[in-house]
């Protein structure tokens, strides 16, 4: 009954990202306004971006537990590459029964309704992460009322450059009567958004763990008043807050992945999104406070993490909308205690 995260896979991913994604790599990608192409190529050679896509669809297989582990480990090193976007795009392609498209892919249409007519798309797609580097923008769209996938090649569109708080290129993609490959979707738009919210939570959990680790080691090394600052109780408080946030977020993400993988899981994913965003924001505050001035500088790695917290905390859905949605579950449940202690079996609430 335990959601086993494959420890070998986790160790491998931990080593991979620790080795490949140095602060220099993160910094260079941001300065260049692009993604870490070398890291991505190496990840491709290990099939990592295809974890969580069924093998018969050209993926590497693996469970949702494996996928959230990949996403969290990438986030833990602030990896400037579209692991989340690529997965969602590739998953949409697979759910539409289309052939595998070589990546990196990116995704759009998760926050706004995009209408496609026939095999032509005219739309302004805001904040499409890494669109300039992607081989295709996979758009969750509507066609004659039905949920469809529309695959847009960058050549058919123009990009207006923008960057996010964490430096991620998020251009606006403008398609004007652009040719697209359209296919009906076998899952609902809600399923797609739920998966996206779970992956956002996994990113935040990975960032939170990284902020904890960095803060713990820094407060052990940094000396003031003749001893490590971590020996002061008021500084320990911040480290404890981060440890709590990291543990809680990770357990929630793993449980939500389990719930989603057996069908449904909407409450679990929403609750996890609420918790991981709160924890990441609180964690970033504690991490900065414990670091003092050095954490405010670009030359120190904390900012790679805390700026990503600000980007991801409300990606695709605002924190208050998520919380409202969780409240909706509480208000409709026969009891709060029953809701939080429910367990799912083969997609049915037990």
């Amino acid at each position, binding site marked *: 009954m335990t959601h086993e995260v494959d420890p070998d896979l986790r160790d491998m991913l931990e080593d991979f990202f620790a080795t490949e994604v140095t602060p220099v790599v993160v910094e260079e990608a941001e300065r260049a306004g692009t993604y870490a192409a070398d890291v991505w190529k190496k990840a491709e050679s290990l099939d990592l971006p295809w974890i969580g896509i069924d093998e018969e669809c050209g993926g590497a297989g693996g469970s949702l537990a494996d996928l959230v582990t990949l996403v969290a480990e990438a986030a833990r090193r602030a990896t400037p590459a579209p692991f989340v976007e690529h997965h969602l795009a590739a998953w949409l392609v697979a759910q539409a029964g289309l052939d595998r498209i070589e990546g990196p892919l990116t995704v759009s249409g998760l926050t706004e309704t995009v209408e496609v007519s026939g095999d032509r798309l005219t739309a302004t797609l805001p904040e499409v992460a890494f669109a300039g580097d992607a081989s295709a923008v996979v758009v969750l769209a509507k066609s004659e009322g039905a949920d469809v996938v529309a695959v847009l090649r960058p050549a058919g569109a123009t990009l207006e450059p923008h960057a996010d708080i964490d430096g991620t290129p998020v251009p606006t993609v403008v398609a004007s009567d652009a040719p697209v490959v359209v296919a009906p979707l076998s899952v609902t738009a809600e399923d797609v958004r739920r998966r996206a919210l779970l992956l956002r939570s996994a990113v935040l959990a990975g960032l939170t763990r990284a902020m904890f680790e960095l803060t*713990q080691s820094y407060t052990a090394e940094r000396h003031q008043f003749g001893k490590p600052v971590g020996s002061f109780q008021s500084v320990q408080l911040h480290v404890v807050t981060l440890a709590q946030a990291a543990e809680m977020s990770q357990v929630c993400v793993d449980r939500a992945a389990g719930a989603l993988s057996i069908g449904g899981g909407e409450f679990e994913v929403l609750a996890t999104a609420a918790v991981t965003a709160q924890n990441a924001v609180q964690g970033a505050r504690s991490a900065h406070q414990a670091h003092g001035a050095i954490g405010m500088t670009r030359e120190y790695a904390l900012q790679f993490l805390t700026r990503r917290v600000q980007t991801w905390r409300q990606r695709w859905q605002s924190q208050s909308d998520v919380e409202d949605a969780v409240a909706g579950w509480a208000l409709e449940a026969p009891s*709060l*205690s029953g809701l939080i202690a429910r367990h799912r079996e083969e997609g049915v609430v037990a």
Partner: protein
Amino acid sequence: MRLTATELSPAERALKQEVREWLDERLPEGSYPLGLGMGGAVDPEFSRDLGAQGWIGMSLPSEYGGHGRTAVDRLVVVEELLARGAPVGYHWIADRQFGPGIAANGTEWQKETFLPGIASGEYSFSIGMSEPDSGSDLASVRTRAEQVDGGWRINGTKIWTTGAYTATHIVALLRTSEDRHRGMTQFIIDRHTPGLTVSPIEFIDGTKDFCELSFVDVFVPDDRRLGEVGAGWSQNTGELALERGGVDRWMSVMALLDRWVRQEAQRPGGHAAELGALTARAWAFRGMSLAVARMVDAGQYPVTEAALIKEMATRFEQDCTDLMVRRWGRTPRPDSDDPYERLLATAVQVAPAWTIRGGTNEILRSVISKGLRKNA
């Protein structure tokens, strides 16, 4: 540290359903005084009935009246009890920690003597740890047990001992030598032993479960010594995972919350985001407690994990209380006709105790910090 996510098995879910159905019959709404989690009313009759169902001392070996079940099974049972504000006060401490404590550290005679009474709900245990000059600094306890012919003579004072007045037994941590940590030993003391005087100390809300224990030349036979002489501190530390990581650390106000959410549902234009944030965190704590219970069942001692949960879960209980009071519309009255309003009036008074009892949050943070450094 990495907690492993876990869910209930089909058998555990079936137990949950069984408990729920029994409680619907045994404790219909309005038939019992509503309690705040582990601070539920003292009702020996209810404890005996619960024991007869096999739901006290569940993890104890069956040869001593227990049921050989798991920490997760116990979690399943107690979360149903706490959600209803059930009268669990009489058996709570025995069930949570001294049943397992005696099973782990007791002699054969002690197991035969005490465990069946714990499992049947007939025995009520109380924790004799704090002293007037030893609160958070527990290693400074001074109440002394001196070895005498056939046993021990105890002199000193224990204080802030919840439930001692109605308990049948007290497990006291006593000084047996000057060695700070290795000079302490646990004893199982009958509540009515000559020389032991139990005096209630009125609590902030006017209740009298808090007690002072005065020991004047109290004789305790050596067969009441729990564990080796000098092992008290480490035994006590081992109990902390049981004491701190459980659902009782975030469910004190669950009965109130259940009622409050139903009330909010009727109210248009509520503050949904606050309710959503609270619900999400309650679900998160529940997942963490479950993970800790699985670790206990796997033979681990998740002392750091338990402290980490308790430190934030008790603050969460206080936040929930504050939110309910803010949203109540007026200050809840202790003499209201509505039992939930009375309970909320109690909760708002006693809430500060939640981050103090069982290890203050300040102590817990230093326990967590040490644990994290060890794991780093």
